[in-house]
Every structure is written in structure tokens, then in C-alpha cells.
């Protein structure tokens, strides 16, 4: 948690990153930037999914609809915050010449997406049966 707070400070203080270590090959920085953008697109897709659930499933019961939409939106927020945090950590690790940080976030996100997908299948099948 203290690490996280220090990283948040780094989001807003570019000069503190560039004071540390040596500037890495610009191609590594650009690759890190593309990874960040890919995570940001994932976050935007989750947010778009939240809007879509709210808009295009009007027959769903209110609690289910709002719950599903809010879950997708929360996942999108988490994903985007994690994107910038991971980007800062990778950038700093490259400057210091350390190993890149490992993360269990991709595994957690894929499990969450799998659970949502299974829930969707169940809802659709239950709609057919009922």
C-alpha cells in the first residue's frame, strides 16, 4: 500500500522518474507505452460494455442490469488505474536496470471475464427454458 502511494506520486511527477538510473533504449519505452495503451483500450472496452449492458438489455431485471453494468464499469476503472501504475513501475525498473515487475492482475481479470461469460450463458439458457 505504501508502494502504491509512492507510485501515485510518480504519476504526477515526471522529473522524479527521469532523475533515476539511465535512460533506456527508446524502443523499450515505446513498447512499454504500447502495452499501456493496450490496457487502456481494454479498460475503455469494459466501460463501453457497461454502457451497452445498460442500453441494450432493457428486459433484464433492474438489479441484474445495474449490478452487471456497475461491475463492468468498476473493472474498467481498476484496469485503467492499473495500466498507468504498471507503466510507471516498468519505466522505473527499466531505468534502474532491474527485472520488470510481475503482476497477477491479468490472471484476475481473465478469471473475472470468464465468470461474467459463464453468468451470461446461464442467463441466456434460463431465458430459453423459462
Amino acid at each position, binding site marked *: 500500500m505504501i508502494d502504491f502511494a509512492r507510485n501515485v506520486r510518480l504519476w504526477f511527477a515526471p522529473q522524479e522518474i527521469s532523475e533515476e538510473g539511465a535512460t533506456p533504449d527508446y524502443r523499450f519505452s515505446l513498447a512499454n507505452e504500447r502495452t499501456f495503451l493496450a490496457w487502456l483500450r481494454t479498460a475503455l472496452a469494459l466501460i*463501453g460494455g457497461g454502457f451497452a449492458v445498460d*442500453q441494450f438489455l432493457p428486459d433484464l431485471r433492474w438489479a441484474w*442490469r445495474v449490478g452487471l453494468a456497475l461491475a463492468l464499469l468498476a473493472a474498467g476503472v481498476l484496469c485503467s488505474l492499473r495500466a*498507468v501504475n504498471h507503466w510507471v513501475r516498468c519505466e522505473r525498473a527499466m531505468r534502474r536496470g532491474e527485472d520488470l515487475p510481475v503482476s497477477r492482475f491479468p490472471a484476475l481479470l481473465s478469471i473475472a471475464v470468464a465468470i461474467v461469460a459463464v453468468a451470461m450463458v446461464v442467463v441466456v439458457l434460463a431465458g430459453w427454458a423459462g
Partner: protein
Amino acid sequence: MTRPPAPDRDPGLQPERTRLAWRRTTLSSTVAAVLAAKAALHGGIRAEGIVICALCCTLWLAFLTVAHHRISTLTAGGTPPPLTPRHATTAVLCTVAMAVCAAVLVY
């Protein structure tokens, strides 16, 4: 018969790929903003709907400004400087704010 590559071009086209990644992300942001506008103005024009729609358009414009700034830096040629944390944070905060608008609309 191998031609030497142009001296100031990266053979892996890294700046170009990064520029296109920004384009794709801007496109995703546009899709989210359009869905937000549709949700905000759905079911009649109300004051709060218009306010949220305007807010989402402003957020989209802010994202577009960041992306445009970065794209013009990447196309300027030479060795591109790394992305600054301020730009990254601005892009992320626009995304988060759009999610907050969505949560208000859904609720």
C-alpha cells in the same frame, strides 16, 4: 543487393506502431463517448442528461488533445522522447471520469 536502411528510420517501425496504438485507443474512446451520449440522451432530453453528455464530450476532447500531442511528437522524426507521466495520467483520468459518468447514468 541489400540496400542500407534509411539512416533516421527505425527498422522495427516502433514510432509508427506506437502512433497507430494511440489512434486505436482514440477510436475506443470515441466508441465509449458515443455510447455515453446515447445513454445520456436516451428517453427524452433532461437537464442532467445534457450536463453528463457535455461532460463526456469534454472528456473525449481532452483525450483527443493528449493523443494528438503524442502523435505529433512521434511523427516529428528523430528519436522520440518517452511518454511523460502527466500525459499518461491525464489519459487514464479521462477514462476513469467517463466510467464515473456511466455509473451516474446507470444508477
